[in-house]
């Protein structure tokens, strides 16, 4: 087995504090009235606290936990979309977030224009996109529709285009929220094939899922978050087993929609 020593993601004592108004105050009028009545209530809570872990190059880390445990917040921190209140996050390499694939598309733009718009949002240069353009179009199987505005695309076509753009780059770090199931059966097979080739041993993966089965298949290590704190980290099977055991024990306390799918 190849020994991979290089740390690509280093999360040190990271915490993020949200300070939100109890009621959503987003108008100046309401704010002023509440301010004068001294009625501005802020709730402060730590969405994540004291989270530390390291991810070595090529390892696949699963992040598990109930809804509201801070999984998505952690992914947002790592992808740089939000900043931690305390602690440090060090990233080596390019991150490709495969989250909300359709975000950033303009429905009035044609497929061609959207490739450049979305590509630019992901930080690709013009020449890079030009060189990869044919490949993106070919993979998405949208050759005949590439000059049609996106608003006339079906949901499946939209997803195919988004997937093809997002996965064109050779990512060093990939962030996945649930396994992608894109388009029809045929395309899904194709996209899963590409995922497999993308998730080769050099690519580091962060994977959030409610399905413990998927985490076990895809990941080699895992962390378990609860109420913003890290309960456990280690090899994927150990963490997942402790997590499922804990859920079985505390079934009554957990909202039914929170209970992840566990194979009986």
């Amino acid at each position, binding site marked *: 087995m190849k020994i991979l020593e290089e740390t690509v993601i280093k999360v040190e004592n990271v915490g993020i504090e*949200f300070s*939100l108004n109890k009621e959503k105050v*987003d*108008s*100046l*009028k309401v*704010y002023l009235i509440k301010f004068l009545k001294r009625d501005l209530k802020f709730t402060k809570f730590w969405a994540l606290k004291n989270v530390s872990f390291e991810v070595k190059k090529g390892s696949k880390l699963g992040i598990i936990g109930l809804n509201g445990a801070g999984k998505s917040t952690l992914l*947002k921190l790592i*992808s*740089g*979309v*939000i*900043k931690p209140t305390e602690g*440090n*996050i*060090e*990233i080596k390499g390019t*991150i490709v*977030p495969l*989250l*909300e694939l359709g*975000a*950033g598309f*303009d429905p*009035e*733009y044609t497929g061609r224009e959207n490739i*450049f*718009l979305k590509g*630019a*949002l*992901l*930080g*690709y*240069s*013009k020449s890079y996109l030009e060189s990869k353009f044919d490949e993106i179009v070919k993979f998405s199987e949208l050759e005949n529709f590439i000059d049609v505005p996106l608003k006339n695309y079906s949901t499946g076509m939209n997803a195919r285009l988004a997937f093809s753009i997002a996965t064109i780059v050779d990512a060093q770090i990939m962030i996945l929220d649930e396994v992608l199931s894109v388009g029809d059966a045929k395309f899904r097979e194709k996209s899963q094939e590409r995922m497999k080739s993308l998730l080769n041993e050099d690519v580091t993966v962060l994977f959030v899922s409610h399905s413990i089965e998927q985490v076990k298949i895809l990941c080699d290590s895992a962390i378990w978050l609860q109420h913003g704190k890290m309960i456990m980290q280690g090899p994927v099977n150990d963490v997942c087993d402790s997590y499922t055991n804990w859920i079985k024990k505390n079934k009554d306390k957990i909202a039914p929609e929170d209970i992840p799918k566990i194979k009986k």
Partner: protein
Amino acid sequence: MITDHRFFANFEKYKFLLFQLTKRDINIRYRNSILGIFWSFLEPLLTMIVMTIIFAFIFKRAIPNFPVYYLIGRIAFMFFQTGTTGAMKSIIGNANILKTVYVPKYLYALANVLSAFVTFLLSLIILFAVMVLTNVQFTIYVIFASLPVLILIILTIGVGLILATVTVFFRDMEHLWGVFTMILMYASAIFYPASIIPEKYQIILTINPIYAIISCLRSVLLDGQLYDPATLLFAAASAIISLVVGMAIFYKYQNKFLLYL
């Protein structure tokens, strides 16, 4: 580590994105209009004709060349208005993408100012055409117009950044700004001579940086003489202050944006 400690960090990397966003803003503006970008020419031209019909006669003495007088004021003011309003909405309007991909957030505000500037440049063509048609003497001072224009760009970016930040937290800023720009428009002597304002209210024009920029532009383009350095200096100082304040508050609060989007 991803760092956005400086506004212009990553600029090289996101140059293409800025271009794309600017292009999209222009496209959105003229979306579903048959004449498309030609409205950049037509709009100022048509309003100029209407305003000339209405006001040229009334102000015949004070403003000999009403079309050019009006066009200069209107073009400059419209750039400021579209640029700041666009920048104001740029963060809340792109909430979806800001939540998923890291992009320097100021790019959205900047793209809106740039797209408004493209429209400004296009309407300059109309201005110069009308200047030729109305026999305005072109002097060497025309090149000095670039200085007030630069100041106008800086002012628009600065005010745009302030508005973008405030609007994330207070959505009703949009309506307030709509009312404010209307007042500002009437207070900038765009379609009337500055002299009709009574002495004791002249202060409104004196402290209005938009009027300062417009009057500098009128000096060099219409009157063929250099502007009053003090007026230009006042405009420049306001622009730089607004940019510094804009950058400071945008930078200070941008990490909180996502919690309010």
